């Protein structure tokens, strides 16, 4: 048979109240014949059958006054106001009188009575059996033995404005009355000996019968707010709770109940709980019946205290303790233990769940609760109930060090529990990297893919773990898909690609993924993974590269600005895949002619390589054409030197020649032909480039001259050209030809003859000129001499300026002679030293001299001229003529083209 009782604890310390001044048991009431008790505002109030009222304050000081002539029957101390309302009798017979005492106003040592009202229902006096006052001081209900309830409405402290009416008329004694406010309505519970009703006194006294059973007087109490102000009625079989609209739960506490009281969430039942005891009734001291006072915690369902007392008169709840007034006129005080000691008692009994609910109902702070959870968890763990323990530990998350719990469960190999804890840890957002790792490891150990899915794949979930760690753990434990999903979701491109390529080997997807990335990520990732991708999916990879290097835009339609990567940076990716590289580079130079020279170089190399390895003639020709085209492409920005080396290495004649030509390396071209003994080409190239570099002919000559075989015609042609351009002194030509054993005189005969002839002509011409110059010089000398020594007759009749007849004054110059009117001369001449007619001519000559003087210092120019001149000697002579070697400048000496004016 199970215990049909709640768990029993002792949460109250019982002590007999002592008089603090004497330290003796409080016995001031020992002769009082108690009729009614109440309490409130720090004092206990006791009325007796002699009409006295006794007040006991906190210091246990007793005061008393006489309130009624005969007796006090009912007392109510209001909690909110310092008012005491009493019912008693001043006269013999049945004549109940309500008195309201204002305890704040003392008059002759007793409180002021502010109201005195007779409580008589109708006109037939009946003893009062129940009494209730609403806390708002507006309603006062009095129940009578004849079953009538009289309601006083209006200020209870005054007689005036107070109206009374019968709100209930039954047949049985009214045993209890209680007010309850529901919204705007005030409900009056009316309990009689045999029934239970509510009367809505604010709505036309509407009556509702709640039950067919009533209650004994005293067995009625209202709960406080913690139990929603229910009416509690104690009956022998159980305690019933009532709401205004009906019966609520019941608690089957058996036994005859004498009193019900309510104290801070506790229901106190005074009962004759002697059922089942062999000797009944139990008699206390002086033959008094023993009563049991039981304190129930309604919310947490346990008995907080239970003790027997001799004949309990009343229980008063005041100043945070319960005072029990017993038949031996002693006061017992029940003091509630503090929460901590209560909890400790519960812990000792391993009653943690109760401790938790108790702590919650006592509003214990969070730290205290956590402490309980921890202890509970430890307890359950110790008992081996790991599932239960982890539930408790989860509640400690955020306060208790997580490692404490984790270590416990790691040691015990309880992965399931550990997983649960870690999950909770993540949910509360305080998981660290290690926790994530551990959780994922747990999942993988458990092979719990669905949980892993949930943890990782759940979309739009707030991320409460370290993504990188999660990815790494998933990868390591082989859950690549999960790692992949994570990486994708959190944009960890590197990880995504690594997994996709290294673990899953789904190159297509990896490629597609790269295509979706923004430019920078795409570029760096291509650089990193390009080689693998190229070797696996060359076509797609090439396409991607093309896109990347031209006008990259992420695949998923981002409008981001177009960016281009440098093609040359990707060339290395195409290792071992020349075809694709060619395709790529062709595309690049087509789309982007201004590509770097590396691109062109590489492409060229590829072309050449292809060409060389091509066996079929037709395609080979085609290849050659393509290569040459590339070389000739004016945009092609290849490196000529390198191209040349490439061509040479691959023996690509057309290319080599073109490149030589492009680089103006005509000699090289010539030499190339010479090496290949292609006479025709030698001559052709000489003809072609002879303009740019005449020396070619000379080389050709020596080349042909060295040739053993018959190349007379070529030699002849070369000679003609050399001759035409006068490239070599004949002596040199002869010398060159002399090397050749095959060259015959007939080859050079014409040439030599012609040369000699030409030289003779030249000599003759020169001699003629010398002669002429000598004559000129002689003439000049004679003239100078003449001017120096002989007189000059001016006989000009006309002015050389105005062509009129010469008149005085006139100016004559020695030069022609020229003669001018003085006024004409003055108006024309720039200075009077020069003849205006000869001056321009003179100045020209002077300028030439001066120019020559100036230019003689510009040595570069001189050397340049010297180099370029076909005949260096004449240049030197020319300079000599300008007086290069003249220290005496011409400017200072007035070489006498003009003379001092001769004035007449």
């Amino acid at each position, binding site marked *: 048979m*199970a215990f049909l009782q709640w768990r029993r604890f002792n949460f109250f310390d019982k002590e007999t109240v002592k008089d603090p001044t004497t330290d003796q048991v409080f016995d001031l009431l020992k002769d009082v014949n108690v009729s009614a008790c109440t309490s409130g505002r720090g004092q206990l109030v006791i009325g007796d059958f002699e009409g006295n009222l006794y007040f006991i304050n906190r210091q246990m000081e007793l005061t008393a006054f006489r309130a009624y002539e005969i007796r006090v029957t009912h007392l109510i101390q209001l909690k909110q106001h310092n008012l005491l309302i009493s019912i008693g009798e001043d006269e013999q017979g049945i004549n109940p009188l309500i008195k309201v005492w204002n305890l704040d106003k003392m008059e002759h040592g007793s409180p002021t009575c502010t109201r005195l009202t007779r409580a008589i229902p109708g006109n037939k006096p009946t003893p009062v059996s129940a009494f209730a006052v609403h806390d708002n001081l507006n309603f006062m209900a009095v129940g009578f033995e004849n079953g009538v309830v009289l309601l006083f409405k209006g200020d209870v402290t005054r007689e005036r404005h107070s109206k009374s009416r019968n709100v209930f008329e039954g047949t049985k004694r009214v045993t209890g009355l209680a007010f309850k406010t529901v919204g705007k309505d005030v409900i009056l519970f009316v309990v009689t000996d045999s029934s239970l009703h509510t009367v809505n006194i604010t709505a036309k006294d509407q009556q509702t019968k709640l039950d067919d059973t009533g209650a004994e007087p005293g067995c009625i109490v209202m709960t406080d707010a913690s139990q929603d102000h229910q009416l509690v009625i104690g009956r022998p079989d159980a305690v019933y709770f009532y709401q205004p609209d009906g019966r609520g739960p*019941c*608690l089957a*506490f058996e036994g005859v109940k004498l009193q019900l009281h309510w104290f801070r969430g506790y229901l106190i039942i005074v009962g004759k709980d002697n059922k089942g005891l062999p000797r009944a009734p139990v008699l206390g001291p002086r033959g008094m019946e023993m009563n049991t006072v039981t304190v129930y915690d309604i919310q947490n369902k346990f008995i907080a205290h239970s003790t027997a007392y001799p004949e309990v008169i009343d229980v008063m709840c005041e100043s945070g303790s319960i005072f029990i007034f017993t038949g031996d006129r002693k006061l017992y005080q029940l003091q509630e233990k503090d929460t901590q000691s209560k909890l400790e008692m519960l812990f000792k009994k391993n009653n943690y769940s109760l401790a938790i609910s108790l702590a919650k109902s006592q509003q214990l702070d969070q730290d205290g609760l956590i402490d309980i959870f921890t202890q509970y968890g430890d307890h359950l763990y110790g008992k081996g109930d790991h599932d239960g323990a982890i539930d408790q530990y989860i509640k400690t998350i955020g306060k208790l060090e997580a490692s404490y719990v984790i270590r416990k469960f790691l040691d015990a190999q309880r992965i399931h529990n550990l997983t649960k804890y870690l999950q909770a840890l993540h949910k509360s957002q305080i998981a660290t990297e290690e926790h994530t790792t551990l959780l994922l490891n747990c999942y993988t150990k458990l092979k719990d893919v669905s949980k892993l899915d949930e943890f990782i794949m759940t979309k739009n979930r707030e991320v409460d773990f370290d993504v990188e760690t999660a990815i790494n753990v998933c990868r390591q434990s082989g859950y690549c898909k999960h790692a992949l999903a994570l990486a994708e979701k959190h944009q960890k491109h590197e990880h995504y690609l690594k997994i996709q390529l290294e673990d899953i080997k789904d190159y297509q997807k990896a490629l597609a993924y790269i295509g979706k990335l923004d430019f920078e990520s795409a570029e760096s990732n291509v650089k990193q993974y390009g080689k693998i991708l190229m070797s696996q999916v060359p076509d797609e990879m090439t396409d991607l590269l093309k896109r990347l290097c031209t006008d990259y835009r992420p695949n998923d339609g981002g409008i981001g600005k177009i960016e281009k990567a440098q093609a040359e940076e990707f060339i290395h990716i195409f290792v071992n895949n020349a075809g694709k590289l060619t395709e790529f580079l062709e595309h690049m130079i087509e789309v982007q002619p201004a590509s770097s020279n590396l691109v062109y170089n590489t492409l060229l190399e590829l072309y050449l390589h292809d060409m060389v390895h091509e066996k079929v003639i037709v395609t080979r020709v085609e290849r050659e054409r393509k290569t040459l085209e590339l070389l000739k492409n004016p945009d092609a920005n290849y490196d000529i030197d390198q191209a040349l080396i490439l061509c040479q290495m691959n023996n690509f004649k057309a290319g080599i020649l073109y490149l030589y030509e492009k680089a103006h390396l005509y000699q090289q071209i010539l030499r190339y032909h010479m090496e290949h003994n292609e006479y025709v080409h030698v001559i052709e190239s000489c003809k072609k480039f002879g303009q740019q570099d005449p020396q070619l002919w000379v080389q050709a000559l020596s080349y042909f001259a060295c040739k053993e075989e018959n190349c007379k015609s070529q030699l002849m042609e070369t000679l003609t050209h050399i001759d035409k351009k006068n490239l070599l002194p004949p002596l040199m030509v002869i010398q060159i030809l002399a090397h050749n054993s095959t060259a015959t005189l007939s080859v050079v005969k014409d040439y030599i003859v012609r040369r000699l002839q030409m030289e003779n002509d030249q000599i003759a011409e020169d001699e003629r000129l010398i002669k002429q110059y000598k004559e000129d010089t002689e003439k000049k000398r004679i003239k100078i001499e003449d001017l120096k020594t002989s007189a000059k007759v001016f006989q000009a009749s006309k002015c050389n300026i105005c062509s009129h007849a010469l008149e005085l004054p006139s100016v004559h110059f020695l030069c022609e002679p020229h003669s001018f009117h003085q006024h004409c001369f003055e108006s024309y001449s720039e200075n009077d030293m020069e003849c205006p007619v000869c001056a321009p001519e003179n100045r020209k000559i002077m300028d030439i001299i001066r120019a020559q003087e100036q230019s003689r210092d510009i040595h570069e120019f001189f050397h340049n001229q010297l180099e370029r001149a076909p005949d260096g000697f004449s240049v030197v002579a020319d300079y000599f003529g300008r007086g290069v070697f003249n220290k005496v400048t011409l400017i200072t000496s007035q070489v006498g083209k003009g003379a001092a004016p001769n004035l007449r």
Partner: protein
Amino acid sequence: MSYAYLFKYIIIGDTGVGKSCLLLQFTDKRFQPVHDLTIGVEFGARMITIDGKQIKLQIWDTAGQESFRSITRSYYRGAAGALLVYDITRRDTFNHLTTWLEDARQHSNSNMVIMLIGNKSDLEARREVKKEEGEAFAREHGLIFMETSAKTAANVEEAFINTAKEIYQKIQDGVFDINNEANGIKIGPQHSPANQSLNVSGSGGNQGGNCC
């Protein structure tokens, strides 16, 4: 919170079959492995929605102990639905069903919807009563049947809601007199009888007792 109807339920069955746990799971969505014996009658409430209507379930959880039978019996009256619970791991609780059913039928109104519940379905390994047996019993006595687990919450919600649906259907069919509170059905505060008559006639019910 306002509601269209209030249904009173009662949970009955032998002690220890999990009546209080079922209620706790339904109202608080939690499970308490260690549960003290119910002393007397406890109470729980929850709102559900059926057919777009808010329905408040007021559930009385009774003590299964024989010695409390007289107290719990007084709560049968005024219940529109009853959950008759047995424990699939204890055959005796199944054997006592007949007594419980008689008791319930005797003390409640005849229209009361009774759902038979085989609880603790999570303890399959310790099962003593086959599901078929439960089904057969329910068929025989005109009950609805369901196996639940208050621990895993399996079918708990359904058990309460299906019962409510059944009651709701009976109201629609006019079987219940909704104006008699002794039937365990109360019309919500905002649903005055005038409004109610409109609602009921709209659903084709043959509600007779409605006049204003």
